[in-house]
């Protein structure tokens, strides 16, 4: 193994790792937003909104994220959507992650005992008051861990944007293989950096999970 080479390219990989992290954070924010809206739609009392929510989930979970990225980035200009690779990456992955998070958030909300909403409504709270005072605080506790799983998947999915030339970890590894012919070292280095990011994220999720539990 060529440690010297690994050391030499390390700063560039580190920089690429920051791009991966930035990509992940922005994707997670967009994913959570889409997931919250998606869950609200799926739980709406309006049939049309429920339909839209369900369609969103089945379309974006039912096709490869890579195809979604390609359609957005390469197909977009054809229908008047001009995005640079990074923007397309964030938007494509964010909307995709949102479909998974929709199901996570919805699942946590419906897992709260129905007697909770009844008790709140019986006191005279409106449906919305019951939702945000009684249901959501309990659902939030239930959704931290599964959202952590979504987050883990999402971070790994950022590797896909190498295919549309965003200069993140995977793309950087590929680029250095072109000049060094050392795929083992380059991918290993990328893999180690991914592992560090995922490990730190996992710890953060576990910490949040402990913080939100009752007593």
């Amino acid at each position: 193994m060529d440690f010297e080479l690994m050391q030499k390219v390390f700063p560039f990989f580190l920089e690429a790792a920051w791009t991966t992290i930035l990509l992940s954070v922005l994707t997670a924010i967009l994913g959570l937003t889409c997931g919250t809206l998606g869950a609200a739609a799926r739980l709406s009392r309006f049939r049309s909104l429920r339909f839209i929510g369900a369609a969103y989930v089945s379309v974006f979970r039912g096709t490869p994220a890579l195809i979604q990225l390609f359609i957005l980035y390469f197909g977009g200009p054809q229908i008047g959507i001009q995005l640079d690779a990074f923007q397309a990456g964030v938007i494509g992955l964010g909307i995709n992650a949102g479909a998974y998070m929709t199901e996570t958030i919805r699942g946590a909300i419906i897992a709260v005992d129905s007697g909770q909403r009844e008790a709140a409504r019986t006191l005279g709270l409106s449906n919305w008051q019951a939702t945000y005072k009684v249901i959501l605080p309990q659902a939030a506790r239930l959704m931290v861990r599964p959202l952590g799983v979504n987050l883990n998947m999402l971070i790994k999915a950022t590797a896909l944007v190498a295919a549309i030339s965003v200069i993140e970890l995977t793309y950087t590894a590929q680029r250095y293989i072109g000049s060094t012919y050392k795929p083992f070292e380059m991918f290993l280095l990328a893999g180690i950096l991914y592992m560090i990011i995922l490990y730190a994220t996992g710890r953060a999720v576990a910490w949040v999970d402990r913080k939100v539990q009752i007593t």
Partner: protein
Amino acid sequence: MTEQTHFVDIRHAQKSFGSLEVLKDISLTVERGQIVGIIGSSGSGKSTLLRAINDLDPLTGGEVWLDGVQVNKTLPHRQYEKHINAMRQQVGMVFQHFNLFPHMTARQNVTMAPMMLKGLSQEAADKLAEEQLDKVGMLERIDYYPSQLSGGQKQRVAIARALAMEPKLMLFDEATSALDPELVEEVNMVMKKLAEEHMTMIIVTHEMDFAASVCDRVLFMDKGVVVEEGPPEVLFRNPSKDRTREFLRKHLEGAK
């Protein structure tokens, strides 16, 4: 509305879940300060009737009136929501499984609705919580979470939570059925205290002795109809219907 004279007036209540008819033309009136017990075997529709009173399980036919106002009005969604929230504030409900909010302390369980719905300040709400929790003997545990309380204690907090809204009617749906036998009495004591204060109450219960001691009137329900009703001493000692006798006999055997 002028013909309305009873405090609670249930007229020809009918309820179906799909093809299953759970309430079959039930009419029932309760006057202010009265305590009415409802007994009957499991699945006879007691909970459904109770839950229809605050429209938690909306009737498929018939009317529910409370203090001169129809509860189950047909209104456009927004107006209905406004109306029903106002009605429900006047009706306290206690559930078999307590349904305390697990992420709130006893104090927060009690203060949440008055603060949100009546705009009470934190201080006023705290005072109210202390008062109500004292009344049910739970003042010492005011800052405990439900998970730190026994079943009987939880149910007493749940009663305090309902009372904090100053309801004019209290509904109890088998408030002691989920409790260990030794914890039943502390909850019954609280209900007796309310009876002494002339709170209007409708109590679904499996405890005949308790019903006999607090209720002015007891209804026996079976398969979605009120088979028989009367003062407890008549209904329990001298029922006129075979089905009532049969139920009481079986129940007494079961209790032994």
